[in-house]
């Protein structure tokens, strides 16, 4: 297990040294600008706009990082042959994959943590204080992290057998489709015959990112049900584990030419 931790730590260090966390500067600029602007033009809806904009930016910045680092997690190591000296040590291939996955998700959690501080600071700036319903923002941030877990696992899966470009296309396509998973399920419910079966299969196969998006609700100060938190946690963990298991199955058989 310690080998997984060392690989994860190294992956995190790579992201930090490759200046991935510099995106926080762009985020800070965006959020400060928005907060100042919103403070000038709106009276009642400052809070709504700041939470909406802040959380959406947290999600989008994270998605971009998850996809663009995730797609190179394995393929870059093969291409640059850095993997040779790692796998010639007592490191199992699954340990390598899980270590890379944890390193990337760790990077995203740290990134999200700093962005969350930014959201609350912006909120404090426009509202001059916090409300009890602001606590639900933490749940929305938690759901965003769960989205990252699924995205990282998907990027890792595609990276284990495909080129970086194709991996990016596949992962991004699944993110977009998954963001409309609830609509897809609705469409499946209205369809008949073969298309019903196909739509249902697709709706349940793609990751349900729409259930993990509660930004609109928390922006309006609406509470999130405990049942949904439990369901989403179990769903994201199970989905990620299954996708990583698939990546391991593929990678265990792959010749590193």
């Amino acid at each position, binding site marked *: 297990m*310690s*080998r997984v931790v*060392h*690989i994860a730590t*190294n992956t995190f*260090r*790579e992201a930090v*040294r*490759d200046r991935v966390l510099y995106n926080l500067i762009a985020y800070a600029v965006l959020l400060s600008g928005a907060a100042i602007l919103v403070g000038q033009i709106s009276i009642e809806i400052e809070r709504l706009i700041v939470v909406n904009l802040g959380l959406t930016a947290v999600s989008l910045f994270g998605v971009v990082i998850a996809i663009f680092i995730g797609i190179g997690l394995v393929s870059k190591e093969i291409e*640059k*042959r*850095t*993997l*040779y*000296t*790692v*796998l*010639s*040590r*007592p*490191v*199992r291939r699954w340990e390598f994959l899980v270590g890379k996955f944890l390193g990337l998700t760790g990077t995203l959690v740290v990134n999200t943590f700093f962005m969350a501080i930014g959201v609350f600071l912006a909120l404090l700036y426009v509202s001059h204080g916090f409300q009890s319903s602001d606590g639900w923002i933490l749940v929305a941030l938690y759901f965003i992290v769960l989205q990252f877990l699924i995205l990282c696992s998907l990027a890792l899966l595609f990276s284990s057998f495909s080129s970086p470009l194709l991996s990016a296309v596949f992962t991004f396509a699944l993110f977009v489709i998954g963001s409309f998973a609830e609509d897809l399920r609705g469409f499946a419910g209205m369809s008949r015959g073969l298309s019903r079966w196909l739509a249902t299969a697709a709706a349940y196969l793609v990751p349900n990112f729409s259930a993990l998006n509660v930004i609109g609700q928390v922006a309006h100060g609406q509470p999130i049900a405990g049942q949904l938190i439990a369901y989403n946690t179990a769903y994201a963990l199970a989905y990620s584990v299954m996708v990583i298991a698939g990546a391991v199955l593929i990678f265990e*058989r792959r*010749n*590193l*030419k």
Partner: protein
Amino acid sequence: MAAIEILGLEKTYKVGFWRKRGRLALRPLHLRVERGEVFGFLGPNGAGKTTTLKLLMGLVFPTGGTARILGKDINDVEIKAKIGFLPEQPYFYDYLTAKELLEYYAQLSGVDVKSCARKIDAMLERVGLKDSARVQLRKFSKGMLQRVGLAQAILHDPEVVFLDEPMSGLDPMGRREVRDLMEELRQQGKTVFFSTHILSDAEALCDRVAIIHEGVLRGVGHVAELTSAVAGKVEMIWNGNGVPAGLAALGAECHVIGDTIRAVVPEAQQEAVLDVLRRERLRLVSLMPVRSSLEDYYLQKLNATAQEAGGAG
């Protein structure tokens, strides 16, 4: 127990869009390397050397056969704690410093970093990178990367060391240092299995060599035996102006370099040539039997392959 036993290891890569066609990289290979040996794996580029090393490291999977290292199957991950590997033209995590890279590999090999901190410093000094220990690898030259590669391969004190073209990219000084390092490993009783196409390195370092070409093992033997076969000729060197008359008739092949003449003479004509030199009052500098070099043996094996192919065609 042998250090390395290769038992019919073979590899065919599937190629083409549907992966239906096969490209043979290694025909069934049988090879045994004893403990403490420095073993050279020779062959031209594309002969199957790197494929063999990748198979032994578990980086690619064999189409057939198996291999054992220190008596354990190559699929046993734990055996890798006892082996070191330097890939051909190594590339490392360039965001790390040399010291951080060695720490990372020590951790992956199960070595406690705190206990081996001094060892890492000593290793960096040994490979001549003490002053660059805290420099990121992206600023390293090719030769410096090769040195880091050697350091990571032997840092955890492995019993068997695999080196794929270890002299590649090194200047003469660097090559000399690598040779010294391999000599040290031999003196420590380590087994060294290294691939190369530089025959002088193999001749200087190896106890035994194997020659591989087009995925087929062409010969294995002790370097001393392969290079000691007297070819029935002697080499004579003397000083003088020009080649004395009559030497050509004795079958001497003469080469003049300034006032030094080097002649390869049939052993049977040795005394006759010496008589000519005495008569001409020329000073003999050296007289040695001609030995076939590893290069001769290597070329002979490769030519045999070409003839076989020509015959088959």
